C-alpha cells in the first residue's frame, strides 16, 4: 500500500495557529521544547498568547490550571514522558480534580522517539492519563486526525490529553470523517477478526489486514483514537461480527489501549484476544523503524497474534 506521510506535530502546530486566529481565549504553554512540539508555530503568530515556562513542567501544569480557572483554553505541551510522568501529581491535583480546561498535548510518545533512548521515550503515558478521573484521552492515528483532534479538544469542556509521535505517520484516516470524543472508526471491513489499533499502529493493522487477506482471513481494522472514553459500542459491534480481537499500540501493554479493550470485553463480551505492544520493558537508542521491529511493533506481529486468536476461536 502506498501512503502519504504527514507529521502529527506539524498538524498540531497548524491547528493551534488556526485556533489562535479564531479564538481570543486560547493560550499555549511549553517547557523549552517549543520547536520540537511545534508550539513555536503558534508562538510566532501570537507571541502574547504564548508562555514558555522553561524546563519546569510541574510549574507549567499549575500555571495552566490557573489560566484555565481564569477562563482560558490552555494548551500545554512537552515530550510525552515529561508532560505526564514528570508532573503527574500537578495534573491530578490542579487540573483533573478541579476539572479545568487544560489540553495537555504531548509529542515524542512511544519508542519511535529514536536516538534519545529510554529516558525520552514513553510507554506509560496513556496509562498515567487514562487513570485520572475527568480526563479525556485521545491518540490520533495520523497527521490529519491530529489536526481534527486538536480542534475538537479546544471545543471540549474539560481536561484532555493528546498523544503524538515524532515520526511522520502514514495517513490512514478518512478526511471526511470528523474526530469525536468517545468514537473510534472502522477503516476496513472484515468478518473474521478485529484489529483495534491506535497511533502509528493503526497503519500496521491495515498492513496486517492485507497480509491476512492473502491467507484468506478477513480482518476488520478499527482506529480507536478515543482511548477514554473508549468507544465501547464499536468494540461490542466488532466482536459480535468477528468474535476475536487483536489490539495494537506503541505503548506498554500494561494499562494502555489493549488493557482498556480487554477490560471492556472481560466484563461484557469475553472473546479470544491478544495485545500487541511494548512488552513491559524500556526502550533504547536506535532509529524509530528499527526500534519498532526490535520491540515487536510490526504488521508481522499483528498477523501472528491474529492467527493465534483465530486458532483459539
Amino acid at each position: 500500500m502506498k501512503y502519504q506521510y504527514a507529521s502529527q506535530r506539524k498538524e498540531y502546530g497548524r491547528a493551534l495557529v488556526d485556533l489562535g486566529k479564531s479564538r481570543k481565549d486560547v493560550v499555549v504553554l511549553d517547557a523549552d521544547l517549543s520547536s520540537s512540539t511545534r508550539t513555536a508555530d503558534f508562538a510566532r503568530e501570537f507571541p502574547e498568547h504564548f508562555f514558555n515556562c522553561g524546563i519546569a513542567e510541574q510549574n507549567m501544569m499549575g500555571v495552566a490550571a490557573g489560566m484555565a480557572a481564569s477562563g482560558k483554553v490552555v494548551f500545554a505541551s512537552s515530550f510525552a514522558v515529561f508532560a505526564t510522568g514528570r508532573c503527574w501529581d500537578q495534573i491530578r491535583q490542579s487540573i483533573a480534580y478541579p476539572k479545568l480546561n487544560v489540553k495537555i498535548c504531548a509529542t515524542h510518545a512511544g519508542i519511535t522517539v529514536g536516538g534519545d533512548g529510554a529516558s525520552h521515550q514513553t510507554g506509560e503515558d496513556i496509562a498515567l492519563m487514562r487513570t485520572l478521573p475527568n480526563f479525556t484521552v485521545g491518540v490520533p492515528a495520523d497527521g490529519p486526525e491530529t489536526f481534527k483532534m486538536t480542534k475538537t479538544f479546544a471545543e471540549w469542556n474539560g481536561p484532555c490529553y493528546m498523544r503524538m509521535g515524532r515520526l511522520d505517520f502514514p495517513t490512514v484516516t478518512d478526511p471526511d470523517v470528523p474526530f469525536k470524543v468517545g468514537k473510534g472508526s472502522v477503516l476496513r471491513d472484515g468478518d473474521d477478526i478485529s484489529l483495534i489499533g491506535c497511533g502509528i499502529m493503526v497503519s500496521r493493522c491495515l498492513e496486517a489486514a492485507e497480509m491476512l487477506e492473502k491467507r484468506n482471513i478477513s480482518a476488520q481494522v478499527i482506529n480507536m483514537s478515543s482511548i477514554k472514553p473508549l468507544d465501547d459500542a464499536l468494540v461490542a459491534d466488532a466482536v459480535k461480527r468477528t468474535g476475536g480481537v487483536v489490539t495494537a499500540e506503541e505503548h506498554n501493554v500494561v494499562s494502555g489501549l489493549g488493557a482498556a479493550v480487554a477490560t471492556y470485553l472481560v466484563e461484557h463480551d469475553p472473546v479470544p484476544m491478544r495485545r500487541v505492544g511494548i512488552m513491559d520493558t524500556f526502550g533504547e537508542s536506535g532509529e524509530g523503524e528499527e526500534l519498532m521491529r526490535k520491540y515487536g511493533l510490526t504488521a508481522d506481529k499483528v498477523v501472528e497474534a491474529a492467527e493465534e486468536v483465530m486458532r483459539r476461536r
Partner: protein
Amino acid sequence: MVAYPDDVIAELERRANLIRRHVIRMTRAAGSGHPGGSLSCTDILSALFFKVMHHRPIDPTWEDRDRFVLSKGHAAPAYYAALAESGYFPTDELLTLRKLGSRLQGHPSRNKLPGIEMSTGSLGQGLSTSLGMALAAKLDRKAYRIYCLCGDGEQQSGQIWEAAMLGAHYELDNVTTFLDRNMLQIDGPTEKIMSLEPLADKWKAFGWHVIEIDGHNMREILEACDKAKEVRNRPTMVIAHTVKGKGVSFMENALSFHGKSPNDEETRKGLRELGEEP
C-alpha cells in the same frame, strides 16, 4: 500610605478572633484537621477577606474579583470560616467540616464550595496556579490582584522555586503572596527538618519584592498589602512571622496541634481563652 484608624484595626482583630473560635469548634466537631496552621494565618485571612480584597460573596464568580489561593490547603478550617463570615455560605455549615457529603472537604475543593478559586492540599502547587491567574489577568488587561497564602514547610518543594522564577520572569506585579512563617512542620521545626533560611534572601535573589512583617499585627498586614500594590514589574512575597496555634496558649508552638483536633476539655479552655462566654 493609608493610615488605618484604630477602630478598623479593632474590627479586623475581632473578626480574626471569631475565625479562631470557629477553627476550634470545627476541628473539634470533625475530630481531625489542622488547627495549628489555621490559627497562624488567621490574622492574614481576616485582613484579606474583610478589608483588602475586592470580592462579592453573593456573586462568587464576579469577573473583576481579586483571587485568593490557599496554597497551604490544610489551613482550610480558617479559610472556610473566613468565607462563611464573608457571606459565601451559612456559618452553620462550618461544623460539617470533613463529614460525608459536606461541601467543606478536608482540603479546599474548587468545585464543591463557592469562593474556592483552586483545589489545593498537595503542597507546593498553589503559587503556580496563582501565577497562572496572574498571567491571565495581564493578558485580559484586568486590574484584579491575586493573593496567595503559602506555608513555610512547602517552601521545601521544588515547584515553589520553579514558580518563583516564572513570577519574576513575567514580572507579575499583580501577585501578593504571604508566607506563613510559623517555623514548624509536621515532623518538627523547619530548620531541623530541612533548613529554609535565609528565606528573605532567597526570594530576593529570585527577583521578588520581599516585605517582612509580624503576621499577627493587623496594621503591618494591611500596610504590606498596600506596599505590594505599588511595586512595579515584580511580584511581592510578604514573609509573615507567625506563631503556630496563635491565640490558644496550649496550642502555641505546639507541634502536636499541627494535625490534631482539640478534645472537649481543650475545646472549652481554648474557646474561653478566645473570649467566648461559657
